[in-house]
């Protein structure tokens, strides 16, 4: 059993936070293309959003299907505030605009949260879905506030530049996002170490016991949701600055589903899980989305595989190797892992081939049957690419099964050895 020791100045923790900050600051100097800056800005905002979502899902055990309500309404309020700033009827530095988003998120957290958090479990999930749909419908019913289908456009370059910072260039916005992301990450981590944060875990695990040690479980869930909505609103405010437009999409079900998927893929059971999940999700979205329309299909497939085979997310997959590394047994895993990776690539190549030619065949077979994949040019109306695709898929599947059996055996041996050592 791992011993968790409390030390006032946890050195490892400072190293982790310090290097995270350093990476976020240095990254734009390494990747200088506009494309990567856009991606990194999205990830920065997404991390705040996903961590706020995980206050509910991971720490509070509340499965929400409507978290975009809080980030989206935060974004709308921030957009209106920014337009007021431009008109001169509001004085506020643009850098503090996310705070408007956060306060709006908090306000709606108080209004909606009181109802949603009355019950936990399935009831909570259903009500969150209902409120999400309700707000999405309102976005079209009240065009004055929501701007109808076109949404609300705004301009982040306003007021006097401060030390030459106008937030015109994307790099300045990126650093604003980094600043907010670091503050929010630290604040949300700190929250997990407070009485309310711990009682959120307690209410998640055993609401009845929590009640019999003096806690109103409704109040614990409610306050957790309100704080979570505050951070979601900050993410919304940042997205308003970043995109200079807020539309109904910002409060929509797709956005709510995305944050659920990203959080789950990363690992809801760990504080840093949603950070990994957000990076994976946006790389899928941007990098894979740039080359294929089928990116959502691949994301869905990844989600499915994670739910079935790694419900603890990438975070748990990483952490399960820590004791193996400590026991110096990793060498037993390299060979099976290499085999699994190689066979997995064959399977993936087959899958991608079949999916891509299917997309092209069903959507554009008559107009553009010629396509290029993995450097090969062919017509989707020919038989050969289909045969190759299904061949790779089937062959890859069979060899993958064998490789995963080897992985399973290696893990079995390792667990056996570690148990003998501890006994």
């Amino acid at each position: 059993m791992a011993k968790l020791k409390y030390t006032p100045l946890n050195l490892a923790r400072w190293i982790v936070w310090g290097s995270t900050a350093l990476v976020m600051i240095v990254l734009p100097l390494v990747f200088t293309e506009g494309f990567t800056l856009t991606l990194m800005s999205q990830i920065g905002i997404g991390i705040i959003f996903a961590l706020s979502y995980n206050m509910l899902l991971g720490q509070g055990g509340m499965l929400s299907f409507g978290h975009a309500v809080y980030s989206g309404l935060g974004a709308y309020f921030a957009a209106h505030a920014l337009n007021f700033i431009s008109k001169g009827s509001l004085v506020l530095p643009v850098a503090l605009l996310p705070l408007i988003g956060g306060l709006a998120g908090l306000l709606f957290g108080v209004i909606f949260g009181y109802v949603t958090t009355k019950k936990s479990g399935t009831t909570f999930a259903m009500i969150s879905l209902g409120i999400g749909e309700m707000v999405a419908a309102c976005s079209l019913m009240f065009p004055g506030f929501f701007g109808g289908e076109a949404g609300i456009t705004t301009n982040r370059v306003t007021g006097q530049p401060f030390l030459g910072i106008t937030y015109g260039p994307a790099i300045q916005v990126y650093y604003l996002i980094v600043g907010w992301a670091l503050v929010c990450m630290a604040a949300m981590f700190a929250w997990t170490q407070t009485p309310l944060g711990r009682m959120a875990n307690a209410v998640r695990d055993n609401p009845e016991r929590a009640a019999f040690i003096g806690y109103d479980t409704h109040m614990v869930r409610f306050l957790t949701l309100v704080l979570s909505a505050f951070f979601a609103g900050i993410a919304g405010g940042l997205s308003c600055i970043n995109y200079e437009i807020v539309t109904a999409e910002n409060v929509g079900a797709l956005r709510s589903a995305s944050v659920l998927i990203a959080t789950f893929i990363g690992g809801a059971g760990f504080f840093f899980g949603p950070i990994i999940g957000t990076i994976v999700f946006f790389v899928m979205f941007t990098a894979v989305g740039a080359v294929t329309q089928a990116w959502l299909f691949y994301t869905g497939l990844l989600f499915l595989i994670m739910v079935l085979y790694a419900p603890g997310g990438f975070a748990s997959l990483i952490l399960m190797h820590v004791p193996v590394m400590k026991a110096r047994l990793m060498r037993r895993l390299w060979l099976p892992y290499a085999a699994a990776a190689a066979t997995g690539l064959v399977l993936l190549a087959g899958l991608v081939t079949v999916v891509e030619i299917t997309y092209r065949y069903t959507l554009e077979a008559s107009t553009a049957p010629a396509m290029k994949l993995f450097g090969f040019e062919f017509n989707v109306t020919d038989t050969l690419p289909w045969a190759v695709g299904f061949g790779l898929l089937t062959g890859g599947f069979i060899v993958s099964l064998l490789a995963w059996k080897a992985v399973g055996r290696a893990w079995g041996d390792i667990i056996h050895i570690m148990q003998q050592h501890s006994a």
Partner: protein
Amino acid sequence: MSSAIELKGVTKSFGNTAIIRGVDLAIPQGERHAIIGPNGAGKSTLFNLISGRYPVSGGDILLNGESVTGLRPFEINRKGLSRSFQVTNIFQRMSVFENIRCAVLWSLGYKYSFWHRLGGLKDANLRAEEVMEAIGLKRRRDTFAGVLTYAEQRALEIGVTIAGGAEVILLDEPTAGMSRSETADAVELIRKVSQRKTLIMVEHDMGVVFNLADRISVLVYGEIIASDVPQNIRGNQAVQEAYLGTEGGA
């Protein structure tokens, strides 16, 4: 001396079935009181009524002279009543230390605070260490509650119950399922943690009951047929017929 707990004509029905049929009981402050009775007599139901887990169908329950009828469990707990459960009811995914620290937070006034750092709460951490010492789980401080042995989990159940410093403690079958030596340890633990407090317990083990209790109430079919000091209960004809007789020389 005023009563820590007083029940006045308390009834409870589930549908048409009356489980508790008019219970009157006054337990003075500082008494160790045991409730015994055959299976299905309604002992656990009575506990669930007193602690607010179920609402009463009729009657009144007073805690230190103040009515707590209709209050919810967390409200009753804040007024100084804490209970344990027959089936261990702890935070399985938290360490022993975290379990107990959670249980002291409200009583020390930290409530829903998100502006205190748990690691910096000297009083809460100290109190948690004291309780761990008292229940003999100091060595298991950082072990997850879910992987403790059964007897250790039962001890933790008592620890979580008493940690908040409640004046009135309800223990629901604290020694159920324990071996003889584990039971002896549990009796000593209960004696220690209930000093200067009011203790009410439901218990099947007559050795434990006669060893610990100042007074015993016998509950049969939702009614208290006798409430007296142990030696009088032992000699009570009605009790022997209704209860002790059925379990022989237990």
